[in-house]
């Protein structure tokens, strides 16, 4: 079988130092996105385990798969979780979730947890959309903006390029810096235009790395336009799949002349993490704790 360059490696994590059976509140969040899905489980607000997997053509199944994978080997079962919040494109199709909250609210909340209360501007680059979010010190959304139609398909666009160039998607960022000098960006409007431009450049004999650099900087440029429309307040953080692509992130930083906060977790789990934090708050509400 042909290698699938576009596929992000799936991953999971368990905090070995937490005994979940002693936990008071076990909450979880499941983020079913257009390209990937994540599940995060918190024990008393501490990150216990998570998974990051591919979204399939059936959202309930994708949710199930993410949850199963997160719980794998932990001894925890679905019934042990007190509250689950669904988020992402498929949020209403998470069969075991009690409530759905949008990925915009969840990413802000998750980023607040991941990066600390100083985060004010979050850029979430997902498979289909790109969102610029402003939040307060609690991770509450104060304003947000989504890409216009012509700039849709950010994450999917990266996949298209991974395939086109036969470069594993996780390698793209690094390789995009293996160039002598920064080339002119390709069309920053549209994934389709960008692809046809890239094919032209490759046929002209451009090395893959250079084409990749041209695409990453086009993407960065497009995202910066979105960010500038809402305004970038410090601190600034990036979440979602493309946050893992340093080729884009570093170029965004360069254009904005602002350094993004360093992630300590897998940036793709921000949405599910936020959902799990909301789930915790909802349990507390139910129990009259707040």
């Amino acid at each position, binding site marked *: 079988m042909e290698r699938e360059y576009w596929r992000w490696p799936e991953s999971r994590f368990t905090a070995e130092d937490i005994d979940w059976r002693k936990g008071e509140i076990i909450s979880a969040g499941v983020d079913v996105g257009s390209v990937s899905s994540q599940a995060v489980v918190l024990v008393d607000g501490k990150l216990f385990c998570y998974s990051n997997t591919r979204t399939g053509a059936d959202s309930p199944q994708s949710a199930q798969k993410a949850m199963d994978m997160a719980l794998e080997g932990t001894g925890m079962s679905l019934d042990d979780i007190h509250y689950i919040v669904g988020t992402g494109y498929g949020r209403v199709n998470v069969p075991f979730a009690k409530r759905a909250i949008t990925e915009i609210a969840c990413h802000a909340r998750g980023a607040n947890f991941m990066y600390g209360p100083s985060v004010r501007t979050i850029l979430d680059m997902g498979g289909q959309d790109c969102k610029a979010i402003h939040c307060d010190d609690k991770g509450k959304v104060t304003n947000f903006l989504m890409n216009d139609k012509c700039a849709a398909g950010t994450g999917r666009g990266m996949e298209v390029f991974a395939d086109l160039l036969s470069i594993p998607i996780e390698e793209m960022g690094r390789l995009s810096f293996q160039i002598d000098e920064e080339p002119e960006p390709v069309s920053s409007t549209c994934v389709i235009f960008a692809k046809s431009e890239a094919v032209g450049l490759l046929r002209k004999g451009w090395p893959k790395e250079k084409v990749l650099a041209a695409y990453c900087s086009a993407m960065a440029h497009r995202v910066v*336009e979105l960010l500038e429309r809402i305004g970038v307040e410090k601190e600034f953080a990036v979440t979602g799949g493309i946050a893992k692509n340093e080729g884009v992130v570093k170029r965004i930083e360069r254009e904005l002349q602002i350094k993004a906060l360093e992630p300590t977790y897998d940036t793709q789990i921000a949405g599910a993490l936020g959902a799990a934090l909301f789930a915790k708050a909802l349990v507390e509400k139910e129990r009259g704790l707040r």
Partner: protein
Amino acid sequence: MLEKYKTEPLKCWSKAKEIRSNYYKNYALAHEKGGLRWAGGAWSFDAIPAGLGDDVYPLTGEPYAASIAWNKEFALRCHEAVEKAGYARDLCSYMRNYWGSIILNEYLFGGKFPKPDFIWQDHICCSHAKWYQVARDLEGGDVPYFAIDVSVGPYEELTPSRLEYVVGQMHDGIEWLEKVTGRKYDDEKLIQAVLNHCRSTSLWAEICTYNRAIPAPLDEKTMYSLYVLGTLQKSSKQVADFYEELRDEVKDRVERGIAAVSNERCRVMSDTQPPWAFLRVFRYLEKYGCVSVGSLYTFGLIGMWEVKEDGTWGPRKTPQELGIEIKDRDQALRLLASWELKKPEWQHFYSPQLKSEMMIRIAKEWKLNGVMLHYNRGCEGLSLGIAENRLALLEAGFPVMIFEGNMGDEREFDEAQTISRIDAFMESLGFEKLEE
């Protein structure tokens, strides 16, 4: 390459360049000379502010924005500044270039963007009056603004009441000009400006008629640089005089058989503003011995036409030629309004049929092999009805090629695809490349 005809450069060329560059310089430096600056569209009645004195300098938005389009780097910065300010990217690209220049506070010809003392605009498409409404916002909201609405229907259906609506606004405009500038209005200067206006626009039409000759003395790419003077200040004596000189030169070229393109064997016309950053597309045509001899756009935006006795199109007779003496302000304004309302490139705002008829006329009288329509995403006004024009031209037996683009935003133009369309079009017309 086969060279059938002699060619030589235009003698007037450097003079046209000089007029243009002085125009932009004068606007920027107007205050230093104690003069006034006004901004507005190329369709506005520039003869009217002329009555405020000889030291009143305009900056017309469309040609200024087209100049920006030539400078890809600056144009892109303009677009991005405008998008950042929250405006849609599919709006008129001239307007976006112009606003960008204000937001960036950079004048294409050096220095900061010179803020106008007043805005003198007219309203033709959805964007025109709104263009300067936003410009005024961007300038801080304190620039006095006046716009005249000319949307009274096609010339052939002009009624006294319709004319009155336009003339009435003109009278109001003069009162307003006196109020905002504190100057006394000079009707004599208005009358002179109106006469110049008629002279410039009639002469331009005459110049275009010489392009019926085979070989054509001018190609459209050259015409762009010449007609533009009419969009800057057609009511000035300088422009009218220049067109007279140019007319004589073009006439002489025809008499001596001087061609714009030495291997001419195929003649086409275009439509709407071209993608300014890609005029080399017109050069590419020459590989096939193909010359674009004009368009309704180059002929009819500035040129004023009428049907002559033999049924063909010719320059509209000016009031001077008709022996009309303008005695007062009202008469001058009436004359100006009814002169402008007959602008060929205005008629099609009311019906694509009116435009199709004019285009078919040009195709026949200028002996064309085909038509290249620029579906211009940058201008909703001139692209209006263009799809219907295409159908009508085909119906009349003229092959049509279309290409999509944008006059002022190069992001919407696909050069490689356009070139391959030209190849296919030329093949379908039965022409092969004369050179590789």
